[in-house]
């Protein structure tokens, strides 16, 4: 309970400071502020999908349904954060590029990630039997995660994109105003906390559902 209130306060305070006090980046101007939401969402997409893949591997090795609960919950949440990153990116693109969507390599690859994990959930829905569902979804999840590094990290760097420099740029340095950096890092921590909390909730729901089903 205390942790949840702290998390809420953390995100709320950071958001107020980030929106009211943090300076703006030239060229991006007011749209700078999307980064406090957009980048943490994109970051958690990768973290959640990676967590889903790790738990899928654990399931395949140990055949423990608890790992499958984690894998499914992480894929759902990863999809949720991916939608968040896509929508906030599209809004930003409208402001900066003049259109919500124009198939920039970044937009294309995030869209592919959305499709892949929607297919994962569709696959889960079509398999009867817990063990079988866990096993087959784990196989698909691992194969799907093969595409993620290509889509998120390789493709946008290979084809010409208008997307601003990734946070870690070519020189491997973080070029940010200290104030922006602190707000951004704080938001990243807050979002990660939010993800961990949502993940634990989703896993608990799956376990309760299984217990209710077995009873």
């Amino acid at each position: 309970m205390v942790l949840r209130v702290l998390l809420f306060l953390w995100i709320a305070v950071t958001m107020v400071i980030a929106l009211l006090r943090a300076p703006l980046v030239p060229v991006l101007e007011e749209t700078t502020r999307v980064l406090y939401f957009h980048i943490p969402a994109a970051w958690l997409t990768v973290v959640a999908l990676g967590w889903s893949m790790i738990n899928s591997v654990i399931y395949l090795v140990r055949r423990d349904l608890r790992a499958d609960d984690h894998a499914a919950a992480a894929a759902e949440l990863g999809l949720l954060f991916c939608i968040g990153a896509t929508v906030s990116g599209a809004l930003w693109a409208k402001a900066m590029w003049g259109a919500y969507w124009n198939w920039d390599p970044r937009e294309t690859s995030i869209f592919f990630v959305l499709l892949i994990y929607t297919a994962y959930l569709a696959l889960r829905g079509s398999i009867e039997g817990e063990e079988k569902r866990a096993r087959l979804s784990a196989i698909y999840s691992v194969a799907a995660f093969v595409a993620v590094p290509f889509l998120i990290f390789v493709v946008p760097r290979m084809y010409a994109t208008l997307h601003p420099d990734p946070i870690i740029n070519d020189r491997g340095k973080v070029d940010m105003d200290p104030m922006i950096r602190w707000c951004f890092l704080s938001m990243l921590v807050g979002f990660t906390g939010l993800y961990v909390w949502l993940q634990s909730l989703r896993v608990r729901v799956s376990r309760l559902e299984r217990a209710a089903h077995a009873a």
Partner: protein
Amino acid sequence: MPATGSNSAAAVWTILRKECRSEWRTRYGLNAALLFAVASLTAVSFAAGRLSDRTDLLAALFWIVLLFATLASMSHAFVREVEGRTMLLMRLVASPTEIATGKLCFNLLFLLVVEAVTVPLFLVLTGAPPVRWGTFLAVLGLGTISLAASSTLVGAVIAQTRGRGALFAGVSLPLLLPVLAAAVAGTRDMWASNPVASSVRLLAAYAVALLSASLLLYDHLWED
């Protein structure tokens, strides 16, 4: 049962031969795939006319025709075993990895046959400008490996679900989109005489990653 290297290779070879033989007896899958590829090719070239000066469109249509032919026929290798109730028997004589690798080889061969018919026909019907063969075959070959690897893995998974046929295209396609994007870019650049090295590298890396993941995952395809 742990099999030695040469035993595994022999098992894979046996599966491949068995696949080819049972395909050759009915030719049902091959006929369906060829018919589908040629029909969609006809639809494309009829609807779009001769596109010799629009190589960007040609590259996209080319891969879409190939992708459709793949999606229409590739789940067949495993679904056939499930519907004929021969899967259990197969698993008695070979390990999951051997079965899946044999099927992968068969799917690869199958795609090559489909392409041997579709590709020349496409180039002729759409009035495509001459291709640079080395580059073209590299893009085509790497794209084919990824198509076969992904559809073998997804095909084996899908054969065990309720939706089977209907689900296969929907679940395979997203995994193939990165391949499609890189292959279309490579083919387009080949025609436009631009450098294609980055697309070929991307295709090669994706094919290798997909193949290695497949080989690790095959073992878990069926419950013991």
